[in-house]
């Protein structure tokens, strides 16, 4: 049963068009992440579902019922805002109770439901406090509790972990999916952090320039990004992008960094085109000694990152390359400023059309 359905939503403001032809549907119990860099209209989309803005064209349906023109209070949606938006002059208890109070829940039942959700989110000991006395983490949980308490069919979460410190953000990233699944609501979660998107979403809608550029499961967006821009948004460090040309002489090959890398003949249809080859840092193999097919590079800096290290490499023509290697391996390279050799597996290459930015896939006949 689709709990939430958006069809052909468009929205423009005086400053320009923000959203164009957005369609998606979310089932009960499903988490859809709307992902994109800042300013792409993700928040506007969420607010239209909530009823704060109205779309120029298109329709919104909740549980089969058309709510496109309905006022916010009539939609039965729960929303948690990025800056919490708690009522400063109400206590934490009253904040959470607000949706129940709007539905005229009898006081005893109201108290019970607020207590239950506060316990679940571990804020039952601060129910009597005013919002300004709470820590950021507690404020965020209060905002969540308020969104969830009336068991809404649709739950909208606007980058709720943005204003919370790194350690807490990681904890919440682990806790949230479990929490959300107990409510069985259709969830739309907005974020700019790709790791959060991959951790939380059943599906990811990548929003760019007001349109959904890709709609796929997290692993698929990472492995098969639909365009250069999407590939750049997923992955830390960012994917390496190098211009190359595709030649077909019997089998296909791309000339990359001065070497020929064989590619499947199924790319034949793209022969002669200017391409951009994408190579993820974890797929770049760096060795201390020369090897067949390896290209000499200058290792200019070594940056440890948690358990691995990022190597900053510069090629003979000034090309920049980032490679990720394990901690123990990185120890061999010291502080850098030495020569190394770089290899990669051609099958790890992602090929994109240089003009359109779209990924080209091998054509299967």
């Amino acid at each position, binding site marked *: 049963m689709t709990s939430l359905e958006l069809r052909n939503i468009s929205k423009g403001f005086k400053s320009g068009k923000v959203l164009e032809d957005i369609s998606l549907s979310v089932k009960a119990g499903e988490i859809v992440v709307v992902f994109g860099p800042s300013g792409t209209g993700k928040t506007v989309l969420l*607010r239209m579902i*909530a*009823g*704060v803005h109205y779309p120029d064209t298109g329709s919104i349906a909740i549980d089969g019922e058309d709510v496109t023109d309905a*006022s*916010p*209070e009539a*939609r*039965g*949606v*729960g*929303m948690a*805002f990025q*800056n*919490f*938006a*708690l*009522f*400063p*002059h109400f206590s934490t208890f009253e904040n959470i109770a*607000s*949706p129940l109070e*709007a*539905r005229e829940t009898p006081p005893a039942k109201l108290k019970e439901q607020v207590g239950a959700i506060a316990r679940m989110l571990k804020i039952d000991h601060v129910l009597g406090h005013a919002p300004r006395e709470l820590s950021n983490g507690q404020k965020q949980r209060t905002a969540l509790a*308020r969104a969830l308490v*009336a068991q809404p069919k649709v739950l909208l979460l606007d980058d709720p972990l943005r204003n919370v410190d790194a350690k807490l953000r990681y904890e919440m990233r682990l806790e949230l999916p479990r929490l959300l699944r107990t409510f069985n609501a259709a969830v739309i979660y907005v974020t700019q952090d790709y790791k959060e998107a991959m951790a939380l979403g059943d599906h990811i809608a990548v929003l760019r320039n007001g349109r959904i550029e890709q709609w796929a499961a997290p692993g698929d967006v990472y492995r098969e990004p639909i365009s250069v821009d999407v590939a750049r948004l997923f992955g830390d460090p960012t994917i390496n992008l190098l211009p190359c040309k595709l030649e077909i002489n019997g089998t296909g090959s791309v000339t990359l960094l001065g070497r020929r890398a064989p590619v499947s003949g199924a790319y034949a249809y793209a022969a002669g085109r200017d391409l951009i080859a994408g190579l993820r840092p974890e797929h770049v193999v760096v060795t201390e000694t020369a090897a067949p097919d390896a290209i000499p590079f200058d290792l200019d800096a070594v940056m440890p990152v948690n358990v691995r290290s990022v190597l900053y490499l510069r090629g003979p023509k000034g090309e920049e390359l980032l490679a990720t290697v394990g901690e123990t391996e990185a120890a061999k390279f010291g502080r850098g400023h030495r020569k190394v050799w770089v290899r990669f597996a051609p099958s790890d290459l992602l090929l994109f059309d240089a003009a359109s930015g779209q990924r080209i896939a091998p054509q299967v006949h």
Partner: protein
Amino acid sequence: MNQISTLERIIRGVLIALVLVFFLFPIFWILLMSFQNNDQILRIPPSLFFEPTLQNYLALLTGRLETTAGNLDIAFMRNLGNSLLLSTCSVLLSLALGVPAAYAFARYKFRLGENIAFTLLSFRFAPPLLVLLPLSLFFKHLHLTDTYIGLIWVYQLICLPLILWIVRGYFEDISPDIEHAYRISGHGWWKTFRKIAIPLARPGIAAAGLLAFIFAWNNFIFALILASASKQPVTVGALAFVTASGIQYGQIAAAIVLSVTPTLLLALYAQRYLVEGLSLGAVKG
């Protein structure tokens, strides 16, 4: 890091004292005058020492003035009552109209919105004398001359712009997301206005109301032209002390003290809110 030398401190103290004397002296002198009779006031050289008398206050309170030329009826207490009535009603009316209008200006950006808002503010800047003549003609036509309703209506020119501009700033400072959250929770727009917008803007509304009261109380020209003696506020009523038999300085001073005291006390009590209201304190969501 910076040490303020003792010399600087002394100079600062002296300068502040001078400024205070400059501003407060008239009030102080009038206070003294109100306890003196005419002879003592007009004595040369003027002296700080005298025998205080409550005669002036008595005359005002009882409404009877005994002069060398005979007895006069002073309607001061009635004037005080008029001031109170006019100011209070004007402020209440302007709040009832201005607060929702301020909310509309803050939340709904419509075409010409800024123009309308600025026009309303410009009423504060326009010299009243400019509009008095046409206004008095209109009033005669509408039979509003010498009515409380007419005066309260005209006083909106003083009170309404103030309310609009101060309260609008307060509403703008409230994060719209707070109201959105309340509506999404399931409450209608009127309840949101009552339970969220107004409580959060309360300091601003109080400050604007107080300020409007003070300005309305101080107004002179509208009541002078558009009302008769029975509706006069204290500002106009003070003119009555310029009598045929001479100027009763003592009573004028007492009248001034009694007129100024309510608003002075109000301002002192609420000065914190006034400063806050005028500097548009932020309410963060």
